């Protein structure tokens, strides 16, 4: 099983590198971080994308929290 690395900026507070199987989607990365996609908007390599989009090795994900308090 080939693993790939995805670099995640979690709400501007924390930077994580997440390992997922090749062919995974963003939703799988969110799952690993215990995050609900209803509460997150994701930009992949700077572009806003749906959570069902696929990830490739070395991709950068910026996670934006919907729950920000206004």
């Amino acid at each position, binding site marked *: 099983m080939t693993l790939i690395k995805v670099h995640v900026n979690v709400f*501007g507070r924390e930077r994580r590198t997440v390992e997922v199987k090749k062919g995974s989607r963003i939703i799988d990365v969110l799952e690993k971080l215990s995050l609900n996609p209803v509460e997150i908007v994701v930009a992949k390599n700077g572009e806003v994308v749906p959570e069902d989009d696929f990830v490739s090795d070395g991709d950068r994900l910026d996670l934006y929290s919907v729950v920000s308090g*206004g």
Partner: protein
Amino acid sequence: MDKTLACAICGGKPAIKVSYIDSYLCKEHFLEYFERRVLSTIKYFNLIEEGDVVAAAVSGGKDSLSLLYVLKKFSEELGYTVFGIAVDEGIQGYREYKLKALKKVAEKIGVKIFAASFSENYGLTLDEAIKIAMRKGFEYKPCSICGVFRRYLLNLAAKELGADKLATGHNLDDEAQVFLMNVLRGGVPNIAREYPISRGGHEKLVTRIKPFYFIPEKETLTYALLRGLDTPFVECPYVKYSIRHGIRRWLNSREREQPGTKYKVAASSLLYGEIFGKTYVSMASLQTCKYCGAPSTSEICRACAFRIYLGLTPGTIKLKIHEI
């Protein structure tokens, strides 16, 4: 990219999955879909009339930045004018960053913003108020004090600046959460009061409108990002104290399992508002606060009651506001 990952309208690269209609939309078609629903809400509920002066309550967060942008965009077509009112509660490490973002967006789209602060108008910041509340046993949570003080100042400012309507960025998530909270509290009059436009007017109350009533919170953030309406990565430090926080998480987990849940909850809220609205609004006889003269459901309005609780002097506020 997977073939199934395509905009439902043009087949282009999608920016968002709109789960409750089981479709992906590209940037262009999502922006159009978003704006069309806001415009429909404004027209269907007659939120804004030609010639109105609309004050948008703006915080610098994603909801209010999107609101300001959309209201400005429709202003020519619908024939109204719009400006923003910001309230600086005095939350260190939070509000100053949001206000900077707001100023930038307002300049970009050409809308005037007026700001009023808790410290200049009430004599203390929210941070200071919370310290006092904590010493007194934390009987009132930060969001209660903040919400009452903020709404009071927004109404006062909107009135003094000549607004006919006060628009807020309340979205579908807010409406669904508030409805559930009111159900849990057994607050039928509050349930009946919630509506896209406030009813049962008073000469000192500016009519409040909610153009984002049918827009999920995730979409207001997506809209802000796609429109380049930058808001900083900061979270209100008091959000964890809000009882709404738990309801929000629960509702979002339900939404994940069954997309469209929030719409169903909001539909119930709207139905209650339709059925009981007129009855409760006509029954609710507004009194005048004995300290400040503001309309109130009791002898002392909540803003004056909180000021007394915090050791401040209640009474009329001579509004201090300035353009930013």
